[in-house]
């Protein structure tokens, strides 16, 4: 008896989550690639990928709920299961943003090419790397890496604002760009949300492995509180 049956079931849940994460990462990369290549044919395939992700979300959620009901987990096991349910939810939403981007790609392919597009792949690269590192931090139990991901979120936010400004200027100069410009703004918005959700995943990883809540500045507040006391 080396491992509890419960541990084996936790491992299986972790593996499923990892599998789902890699599907989500694929979907995002696929959608971004479609924008870059002006490929209008990807939306349907992206939808099919998302369907699979949705199916996994339900499966993982049910497994986690059943493990909680049956094993009354405590401490690290409990944090892992609660964290897994949240990460599961985050991943599913990231998948939805991937579908949105794929649909935008189809629209962008049908309008004149816009110069600022150059910044979108750059922003996408940042968001995807945040997603990848947040998942790595969860899988390998590396809270330092998770903290580092959180610190990158501001960069993505700034990039989104910058894209917004540039695209607005383009749209004001030439009404022909309005349709494409709006779509680009939507893509930027989706990428910014992906980065936010990657930050959430990192925060969950920190909670799971260190038991610390860092979201909404909670960690800073508790430090100040302890100094004041």
């Amino acid at each position, binding site marked *: *008896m080396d491992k*509890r*049956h*419960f541990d*084996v*079931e936790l491992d*299986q*849940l972790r593996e*499923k989550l990892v599998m789902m994460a890699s599907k989500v990462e694929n979907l995002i990369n696929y959608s971004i690639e479609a924008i870059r290549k002006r490929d209008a044919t990807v939306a349907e395939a992206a939808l099919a990928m998302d369907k699979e992700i949705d199916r996994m979300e339900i499966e993982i959620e049910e*497994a986690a*709920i*059943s493990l909680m*009901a*049956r*094993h*009354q987990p405590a401490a690290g096991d409990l944090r892992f299961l609660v964290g897994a349910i949240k990460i599961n939810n985050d991943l599913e939403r990231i998948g939805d943003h991937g579908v949105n981007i794929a649909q935008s790609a189809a629209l962008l392919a049908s309008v004149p090419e816009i110069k600022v597009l150059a910044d979108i792949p750059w922003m996408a690269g940042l968001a995807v790397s945040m997603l990848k590192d947040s998942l790595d931090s969860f899988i390998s139990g590396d809270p330092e890496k998770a903290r580092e991901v959180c610190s990158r979120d501001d960069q993505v936010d700034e990039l989104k604002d910058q894209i917004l400004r540039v695209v607005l200027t383009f749209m004001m100069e030439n009404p022909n760009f309005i349709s494409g410009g709006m779509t680009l703004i939507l893509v930027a918005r989706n990428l910014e949300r992906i980065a936010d959700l990657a930050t959430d995943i990192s925060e969950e990883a920190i909670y799971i492995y260190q038991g610390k809540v860092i979201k909404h500045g909670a960690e800073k507040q508790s430090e100040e509180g302890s100094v004041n006391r």
Partner: protein
Amino acid sequence: MTGTHHGIVASSNKVEIRSLDFFYGKFHALKSVTMSVQQNMITALIGPSGCGKSTLLRCLNRMNDLIPGASAKGEVLLDGSDIYDPSIEVAELRKRVGMVFQRPNPFPLSIFSNVVYGLKVAGVRNAARLAEVAEQSLRAAWLWDLLKDKLDHSALELPMDQQQRLCVARLLAVQPEVILMDEPCSALDPIATMKIEELMLELKKNYTIVIVTHNMQQAARVSDLTGYMLLGEMIEFGDTNSLFTKPSKKLTEDYITGKYG
């Protein structure tokens, strides 16, 4: 998430209980209970004290026959044959359907003699055969490595959890098909309890297990199927997962959430 541990996988009914009523004299202890015990699964019976779960368990190998004034009505089929049929040999039945009790009850004999007791009663005298079965049974109960060098020691010297596992080994030696467990962990601490639970999960690969427990968390952890009983009635019977996440009866919900019992 292994198939057999969570959902119900298609499996054959090892024991089928059909409209079973049971009386202790005039007291109606079981009221038309119907349920099936599936092969190679762990079936748990839960419910407050006096709900009839132990009575139901003891009906499965006719342990209740020993109680004066007790009578049963209905059917209990083991592999399709009614165990209450007059032609049934009760001793043979109890060999096929063995039992582990609340408190470990090793005989005041050596560890070895405890394990091979049933075989000796059945007339096996061949020393090599006895040694072989003793080793197999102790291995299956995760005791071989611990006890192989002190087989001649008294079983009563062992700590409680090892005594309980020795009782399991003693049972396995006569090759039962169904193992009934009546509160097998109530005399054990949490670590010893975990060992018995892990052992049950291992044993179900080769045996069919029915366990009565007042500890419903234990039922939730180890069983594939769970029956909730109240006042002699089977209130709800189904796969453990569903019963503990979305029970279909309000009475079950009240019990498992601690509002009743």
